[in-house]
């Protein structure tokens, strides 16, 4: 029983038929083909054992794509995550150690899993930032609810939240330990070891910034 190949659509697409099984004598009698198949697997087997025996094991990072054994003996050996890897969040800091976050709630709005909780607060009287921006009194991320989509990083208008720690979500014993508060989030350094923000926006009062003292001009 063979179906006709039909041409379809305005473009009259004609398919390229795939081959049917070739039942030659050697296939029908099992043995020769079994030997051939075993030959292929044995080729791999001996190649792999040779590599193991002579210590020629591939480097799983640099030669991960090569033939042979590319096992990573986790946790003794770890594969570095690529530059874009989205790991555990961190909150960046300013020069004086204050959080860069201005509690604008963009990240918690953009979050599809609704795992970010922010309570905004005013800087105290006399602080130059008072009246200019707010700060997060509480900044909580539930790492169990988080789906690591990276939308919060994209939504942040001041480069305050990042996912470039290069750390994947660690396993803990209890649910409470997955609730990351502000101090934990600010404690993570980035991949380069820095906790500083990359945001070039000026602090209030500095020359060139269009902020609080705009009315004076």
């Amino acid at each position, binding site marked *: 029983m063979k179906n006709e190949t039909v041409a379809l659509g305005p473009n009259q*697409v004609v398919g390229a038929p*795939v081959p049917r*099984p070739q039942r030659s004598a050697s296939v029908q009698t099992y043995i020769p083909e079994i030997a051939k198949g075993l030959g*292929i697997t044995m080729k791999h087997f001996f190649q792999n054992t040779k590599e193991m025996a002579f210590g020629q094991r591939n480097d799983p990072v640099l030669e991960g794509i090569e033939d042979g054994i590319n096992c990573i003996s986790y946790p003794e050996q770890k594969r570095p995550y690529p530059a*874009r890897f989205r790991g555990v969040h961190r909150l960046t800091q300013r020069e004086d150690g204050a959080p860069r976050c201005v509690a604008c709630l*963009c990240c918690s709005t953009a979050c599809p899993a609704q795992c970010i909780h922010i309570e905004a607060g005013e800087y105290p009287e006399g602080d130059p930032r008072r009246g200019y921006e707010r700060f997060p009194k509480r900044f909580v991320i539930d790492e169990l609810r988080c789906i690591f989509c990276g939308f919060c990083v994209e939504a942040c208008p001041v480069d305050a939240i990042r996912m470039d720690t290069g750390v994947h979500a660690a396993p803990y014993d209890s649910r409470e330990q997955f609730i990351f508060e502000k101090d934990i989030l600010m404690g993570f350094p980035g991949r380069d070891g820095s906790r500083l923000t990359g945001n*070039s926006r000026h602090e209030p009062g500095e020359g060139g910034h269009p902020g609080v003292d705009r009315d004076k001009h």
Partner: protein
Amino acid sequence: MEPLDQELDEAELEMPTEPMLLNVGPAHPAMHGTVRCVMELSGEIIEHVDVQVGYLHRGFEKMCERGTWTQVFPYVDRCNYVSPMLNNVAFALACEKMLGVTVPERCQWYRIILGELARMSDHLTCDGAMAMELGAFTPFLWMIKAREMIWDLLEEETGARLTHSFGRVGGMASPPTDNLKDNARAVTQHILSVVDEVEKLLLGNRIFLDRLEGIGVISQADAISLGWTGPCLRATGVAYDVRKASPYLKYGELDFEVPVGTTGDCFDRFMVRLAEMRQSARIIEQACQRMADKGPVNIDDPRIILPPKEEVYNTIEGTIQHFKIVMEGLKLPAGEVYAYTEGGNGELGFYLVSDGSGTPYRVRIRPPCFLITAGLERIITGAMMADVVPSFGSLNMIGGECDR
């Protein structure tokens, strides 16, 4: 008193002949996704089968109505979780069709490369798992190792192995990395060698051939009336491929073939997938050649795409635009649209209804798996119990997509 043997002659010899009911699934190793088959067996022959889906139903379509259009991307990642990038691209294309915009050329090539890699990963998983279920474990391991390379590449591009959330309406989340082309070429080369080796290992194996050839046959008419698309339909000889029939992105300019089967049995479905991987490799090579190394990836429209970060930090216009998109959501014009692409398993369509607010009014997905799984009953009724495994394996039912 009557003799004993007379009673034996008159009495009917009673055999328990009512059919045996057998549950396979929802958590059976041979059932890829969570699907349950209640089979009525007469001996080893399946008299009647009731295929029950829905064990992985998560309310995808309803959930989408909660957030913004952008927030749908993480959900579509989790529909077909073997080729999430194809879903990302399909949904982005549907939204762009509604907006009436086209992404820059570089982005189109980028989407093609990532999408074809995802298609390869889909086919590698299906063919590998199918071979494993028939007892051939080695090809499975080789193919999964090859798939791992695709996922490493996608991780390098997108930041996550599986749940990329990488598509955006009007572009991609980030531009291609510098070594995308080298990586894609190296990975496809390796996958082609794996495909060749798997072919050598399996196609001379009579046990494998006997278990696939002539099993799970479906006619062209049945396949079309069930709404089958993708490799399963093409295995019956119908050369329907959305990439050819109604080209989207840059597929119309590419040179590739549509592999079709001749009988519509499990063997054809297996071979069509293998052949499609070779075609995907051709597409990736052509796309790598034609994709520019420099140039915009996202469309230049501040109403759709978030402004560059430097502008957000330093200019009030950028900040306002950023806040408008994040807080209100991207506004799609009121109306409805159906956009369809070739997913890993067939025609993957999105039917979107927008009321003009930033939130989807209705998101309906046309999952190819759902319609294909509907045909499972037809292809295994009357077959032997052992034929269920290759038949179901060759359909490549993906729970997340089928049950939504």
